[in-house]
């Protein structure tokens, strides 16, 4: 087998591109779940963000406005979920699934006149000399802005959850909303903010697919990325830094198998594609086997409705 033609640098660069949308969506969902809310509507928020970002970019010619629109779009959609689950106390699983369906349909409707259009191209970091350095130049210093932004969000979420008072409150709400309420924290408000953050992240991740990764608008184009993001949160056992690992694993295996095939390496694609899901299942089994560890990681109030009277 000739692996010499496999360019690890190019591979790493495409891997980061493939991993960025699922990492963004997963980070958002992680914060949502840490606050005790299970939002299964990630796919719907992603696709809606994808079309909002695409449409605004095309209409205004500015990808920056597009990115902002994508985040707003994702947030608005997530807040409908927030309203349903936090004020009307509807079932989170059903509302989340409905959000996915609604997002897919709404995006298809909005996107009808945007098929086959090329969006304005997205600027990439280009620092003279540094971006041209071998190996670290292409890997570290020549991406689009969103890749760097996603790392800032990653670091921010990690720091926020572990080292800030706000993060502590959010986790308290996720662990036991009754106790948090008794302490005087606004459970619903905290959760709504978390849901909105999750929506913005998912919207941004969707826009990354439609503006940078592909780049075009096609109905249903996120093709399940939102569900993978949900799997990554579990895989990461609700720890932000492991989300990066999960996103690179899920995204990386896809990229790796495509590149290995282009090289003509004999591999069984089906097994490779299955691998991340198998790992997720194994993680779930390990977690459930050790009840102490599970109770440390999975938010105890995940998916439970809260009302001050109860």
């Amino acid at each position, binding site marked *: 087998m000739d692996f010499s033609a496999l360019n690890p640098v190019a591979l790493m660069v495409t891997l980061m591109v493939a991993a960025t949308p699922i990492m963004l969506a997963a980070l958002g969902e992680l914060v949502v779940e840490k606050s005790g809310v299970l939002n299964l509507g990630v796919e719907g928020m992603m696709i809606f963000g994808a079309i909002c970002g695409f449409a605004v970019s095309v209409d205004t010619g500015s990808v920056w406005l597009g990115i902002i629109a994508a985040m707003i779009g994702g947030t608005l959609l997530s807040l409908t979920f927030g309203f349903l689950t936090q004020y009307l106390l509807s079932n989170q699983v059903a509302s989340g699934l409905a959000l996915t369906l609604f997002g897919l349909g709404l995006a298809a409707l909005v996107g009808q006149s945007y098929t086959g259009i090329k969006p304005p191209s997205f600027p990439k970091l280009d620092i003279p000399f540094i971006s041209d350095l071998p190996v670290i130049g292409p890997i570290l210093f020549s991406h689009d802005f969103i890749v760097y932004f996603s790392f800032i969000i990653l670091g921010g979420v990690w720091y926020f959850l572990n080292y800030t008072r706000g993060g502590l409150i959010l986790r308290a709400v996720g662990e036991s909303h009754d106790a948090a309420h008794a302490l005087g924290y606004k459970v619903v408000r905290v959760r709504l903010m978390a849901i909105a953050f999750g929506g913005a992240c998912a919207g941004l991740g969707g826009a990354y697919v439609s503006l940078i990764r592909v780049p075009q608008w096609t109905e249903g184009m996120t093709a399940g990325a939102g569900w993978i993001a949900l799997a990554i949160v579990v895989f990461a056992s609700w720890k932000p830094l492991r989300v990066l690992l999960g996103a690179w694993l899920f995204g990386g295996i896809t990229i790796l198998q495509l590149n290995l095939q282009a*090289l003509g390496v004999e591999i069984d694609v089906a097994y490779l594609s299955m691998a991340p899901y198998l790992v997720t299942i194994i993680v779930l089994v390990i977690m459930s086997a050790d009840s102490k560890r599970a109770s440390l990681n999975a938010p105890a109030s995940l998916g439970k409705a809260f009302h001050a009277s109860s």
Partner: protein
Amino acid sequence: MKLMKTILAGAALAVGFSGAALADDPVKVGFVYVGPVGDGGWTYYHDLGRIAVEEAYGDKVETTFVESVPEGADAERVMTQMALSGHKLIFTTSFGYMDPTINVAKKFPNVKFEHATGYKTAPNVSTYSARFYEGRAITGTIAGHMTKTNKIGYIASFPIPEVIRGINSSFLHAKRVNPDVEMKVIWAYTWFDPGKEADATSALLDQGVDVILAHTDSTAPLAKLAEAGGYGFGQAADMIQYAPAPRLSSIIDDWAPYYIARVGAVMDGSWESVSTWHGIPEGMVAIGEFSEVIPEDVRNQVQEMKDGIAAGTYHPFTGPINKQDGSAWLADGEIADDGTLAGMNFYIEGIVGDIPN
């Protein structure tokens, strides 16, 4: 993920069909699609066929469709719902619906089924497909001429005869005009996933490929090529929005005349189980305009080939052709028979790699 979609699809169906019309008057025709109608490719053209049926028969017909139906057991539920809600004719438009179609058809002997690109029939199940390999001969010839690196790429979906025929036909014709050409095949294992299709395109470009033929359903490969450079073709649809480059030409599937004829047959009671396999001569496969980027002599050459196929004087699989292992398949001047083509499970000589199981 699949489970969720399934539940949703089931719920949506239950809601969608519970209010179904009193059966009597219009003939109800259902369509099961593998992707969204807005994919700009495969499903989009099937839906154009559906719309043509509505236009042809007006209020004598009522059509419904369910899009993005996963292949396999989920499809069975969708078809069952359609059959239960009074549909007289159901088109199932992807290879992976083959066994589900046969299973459901057994339970509803009075409902007619038409399955696209498969090979299993029953008294109430017809099959229909297009000879896409005729179009592949033309796009393969263009690819052979247009590649500068002598490396062409093929984004394949699933290892089924239809796709293998396309790979063989493309490579055969590229090789005839460019003996140095190599082909790299990537199996995407999906019909529709724009992100993955774009990633596959990038992977091929990274390996020095500069002309890509896609066998997936979306326009993503062309979008990626438009950004990164290289040439491609419209697949299942014209995709003219990417002309003159990267789209050099296209293979267009025109299902409308067939759909209109079959719906008509159900209406007048003349429907019978048939296996239809039409191509360029009958118009089921059309070739999109040749881009001006292609040199004129090449355009003339492929036009001639297209005319030859249309007139029945040229068959894309005309010997001498050897199989991948070097053993003879077709002798000089020998033409492949439909049976072998329909079940094609081998590469021809010169293609590197194995067909996955």
